[in-house]
């Protein structure tokens, strides 16, 4: 379908280098990468960067506006919340939680989803039907509703939120992997190694899996943004992280009451959620374009 690249150089560059070149052409993706790196940095060095501890209550500084506003203090750059905690520090520590939620739930869904997809694609028949029907069932439930239901069963809390989101994201990976496996299995080289006596495990991990890493990586990056967003939504509904955990969504949970009196309590956590989700989406889009132009939306 796609025309071969015109005038290929005699020596193709290293594939990773080429990937990076493609990636760099997308300014949005670079910006996304930049923000993600910044988030990682903040998460790693939260203790050093954050001016205050996340749960420390400064009782003489309740609901202080940001430093630049009248009445604000340079001690609390983004102001303080209703019990006198520094909002900036809470946001910085919150980075850690959001990334952690992302990592745990994406690994969970990636791991289980890939295995299920491999099984379905390799064995076909009843196994495939059973697995894929289950995935259909899960996809039929709106993601947040499913997450809410899982939390309703497990009870609120950060760990359970990670499980819930992991479960919600799972079907995408299973579907992707299965499709890739079915596509690859019919190719000649797989047939050849099969005839050469390669066992199913070897076939899957040596031949099939490497060929579907690209879409999986893209999906995992986008999964991060979905995880952050859903975790924040659960936190907002009071089903996620419990106080005093500085989770971004939970910081917004009681924000409605400050809509008239303290705009900073309402604004900053949401802005940070938006920025990080946006960053992961940009990164995912950039990766997709760079890895495989055909996958482009």
């Amino acid at each position, binding site marked *: 379908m796609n025309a071969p690249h015109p005038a290929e150089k005699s020596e193709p560059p290293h594939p990773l280098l080429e990937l990076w070149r493609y990636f760099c052409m997308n300014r949005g993706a670079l910006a996304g990468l930049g923000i993600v790196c910044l988030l990682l940095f903040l998460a790693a060095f939260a203790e050093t960067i954050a001016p205050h501890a996340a749960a420390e209550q400064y009782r003489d500084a309740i609901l202080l506006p940001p430093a630049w506003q009248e009445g604000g203090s340079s001690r609390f750059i983004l102001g303080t919340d209703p019990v006198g905690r520094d909002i900036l520090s809470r946001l910085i520590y919150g980075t850690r939680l959001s990334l952690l939620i992302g990592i745990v739930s994406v690994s969970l869904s990636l791991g289980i989803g890939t295995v299920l997809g491999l099984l379905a694609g390799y064995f076909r028949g009843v196994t495939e039907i059973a697995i894929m029907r289950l995935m259909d069932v899960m*996809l039929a439930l*709106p993601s*947040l509703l499913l997450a809410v*239901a899982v939390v309703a*069963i497990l009870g609120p809390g950060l760990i359970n939120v990670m499980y819930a989101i992991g479960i919600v994201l799972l079907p995408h990976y299973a579907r992707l992997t299965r499709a890739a496996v079915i596509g690859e299995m019919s190719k000649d080289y797989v047939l050849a190694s099969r005839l050469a006596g390669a066992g199913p495990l070897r076939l899957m991990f040596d031949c099939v899996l490497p060929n579907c890493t690209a879409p999986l990586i893209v999906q995992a990056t986008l999964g991060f943004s979905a995880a952050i967003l859903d975790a924040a939504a659960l936190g907002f509904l009071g089903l996620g992280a419990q106080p005093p955990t500085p989770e971004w969504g939970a910081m917004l949970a009681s924000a*409605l009451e400050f809509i008239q009196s303290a705009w900073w309590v*309402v604004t900053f956590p949401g802005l940070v959620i*938006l920025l990080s*989700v946006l960053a992961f989406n940009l990164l995912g889009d950039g990766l997709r374009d760079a890895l495989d132009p055909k996958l482009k939306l």
Partner: protein
Amino acid sequence: MLGFFLRRAGLVVPTFLGITLLVFSLIHLIPGNAVEALSGERGMDPARYARLMNEFGLDQPLYQQYLQYLWKIMQGDLGRSIITHEPVLGEFLSLFPATLELSCCAMLLALILGLPAGVLAALKRNTLLDYSVMGVSLTGYSMPIFWWALLLILLFSVTLGWTPVSGRIDILFDLPPITGLMLIDSLLSGESGAFKSALSHLILPTIALGTIPLAVIARMTRSAMLEVLREDYVRTARAKGLSRLRVIGIHALRNALIPVITVIGLQVGTLLAGAILTETIFSWPGVGKWLVEAIHRRDYPVVQGGILLTASIVILVNLGVDILYGIINPRIRRSS
């Protein structure tokens, strides 16, 4: 055609059964005990416990309980709410129009703005317009909508005072629910000002809920459009000297809309998930708010029934989209 229809419909049955199984197991998965969960009573005496156990059929083997559950569902019996003691199905049906109204308006908004934005972005590819459409839509796509809703309230309701903060209609209007859709009911009631009130209550929730579908549709339309514009027949048509507008309007747009329809189908899930948050923030008396409250209240029969019904709607809409897709695009019909 009929064969295709039946095949597709047939695929829905196991999915539906899967969901019933999932919802059925919910009550056994929650920590604590099923009798307390289903009755909402705590610290019962043994006699009452035994009676309720028998009443809920929890003393029977699991597979039998499941079959009974299925049998009840077939008859439209989804149990009763622990709090109100009303049938779950009845509560759902009385609240669903509110969600339907909100979702339809949100989808309408997404289509009205998203389609032209996507088409324009594709036509003006790599211009400032394209970049801004893509930038804005990606931001919309990444938006935590509960926060977005708060900002909208902050700006339009609190600061400017243009729109009401919450609810479906000014409380002074006591309208009999005829269709359950407030926009239509307010017209039918003939009370002056009612329609205007209903409309003004609808604006902010619609924007909040419509943002993500809007972003997705704009992005999808753009890429579908680009794909089609590259196709040979469009180029041929252009080459034949057909006017640009005609080519775009008749050939390109029609073909670009096909994948967009699928996306619309997929957005139903997004809308219902978004409804959970939007309805909670705007006190919109719909299914989403009902479900969240039921979870907070540990009203498990409602949680079970609500999940089952919501999932069924998603399945049915997707089935409809599938079939529609098959009608528009005969290739699919043959290949599947």
